């Protein structure tokens, strides 16, 4: 029963998600579907990469705590990629603009909303670190700021096409929440075009679920 409840929560989380992770810009001509769900919101982003330095696509985000949904278009710019024989580092800037609309009986009128943020990551085949921050302004639905840092390691190095496994810890900071700082240990599975992450926020007892599919 507990397993079924966990599976149900993860599935629900998948359907609804926040800030884009896991290579938000693809190869030239590539498409990517990203779903994310954390302690505050859930979102789905579908983006196309016309050139290797930027991507754009529609994004739907449901803020569960504040009862509004944001329907936006998000461009993401790969500002800098650092290359090495054994590592890769990236700096991204992203933004979005669209309409915020009440959900779950929220009577507030639709309003124009927007967000902007930065992401940075550094990765080898066995170590990972990242940081991201975002500010969201949604008129009378409210304002949100969040930042999160993540570290992780791979217990083994898989070759091309193998199942890659990562163990990670994310610490996030959301000043407007009562529990402003929280910790989420998670596991990342990565195989071919599919990346899946599942974790559990120890501070507020909520699951985390993210996926990325690239084609």
């Amino acid at each position, binding site marked *: 029963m507990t397993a079924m409840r966990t599976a149900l929560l993860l599935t629900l989380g998948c359907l609804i998600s926040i800030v884009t992770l896991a*290579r938000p810009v*693809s190869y030239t001509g*590539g498409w990517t579907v990203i779903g994310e769900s954390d302690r505050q919101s859930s979102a789905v982003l579908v983006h196309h990469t016309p050139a290797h330095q930027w991507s754009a696509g529609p994004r739907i985000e449901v803020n569960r705590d504040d009862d509004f949904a944001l329907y936006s278009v998000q461009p993401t710019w790969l500002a800098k990629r650092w290359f090495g024989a054994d590592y890769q580092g990236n700096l991204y800037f992203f933004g979005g603009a669209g309409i915020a609309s009440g959900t779950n009986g929220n009577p507030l009128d639709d309003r124009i909303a927007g967000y902007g943020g930065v992401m940075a990551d550094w*990765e*080898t085949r066995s*170590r990972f670190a990242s940081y991201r921050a975002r500010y969201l302004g949604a008129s009378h639905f409210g304002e949100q700021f969040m930042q999160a840092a993540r570290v992780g390691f791979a217990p083994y190095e898989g070759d091309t096409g193998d199942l890659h496994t990562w163990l990670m*810890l994310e610490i996030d900071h959301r000043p407007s929440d009562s529990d402003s700082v929280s910790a989420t240990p998670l596991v990342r599975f990565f195989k071919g075009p599919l990346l899946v992450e599942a974790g559990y926020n120890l501070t507020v007892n909520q699951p985390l679920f993210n996926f990325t599919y690239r084609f």
Partner: protein
Amino acid sequence: MNLLIKTIVMTTALCSCLLSTAQEHHDHEEANSSYASHSGHGASDGPVLTRTEDIESALADGGEPIVADVLGVVCDFCALAMNKIFSKREEVAAIYVDLDTKALNLVLAPGASMSDQTIADLAVEAGYRIAEVRRGDAALGSAS
């Protein structure tokens, strides 16, 4: 306070694992360097062609082998990007991105050619950068 304790415990555990993994990674690389001379790596010229079934088949057809060292290839998304970009080219008969050797392995179609600059440009389209390209015997590891 409860959160602080959880965070400290998790961070300490993770740091311990990272240090352990870093040491294992170092050991692994040392082992690889001693293995290189008989496992498909040239002694000083970098990795040689990784032979998958497709690669072997394309070689048997008479295609030119190419091995390109790629910077920043650390995950399957990187390999996927290179595969997607290079596979679209009719000059390419077989491709394999080897994360272990960090190399793009190509065999061209018989009679086809692809310049180093084209390979570099295609790698940029995929989001990566080529450090060096080896062809023919150098790619096969049979150069004198």
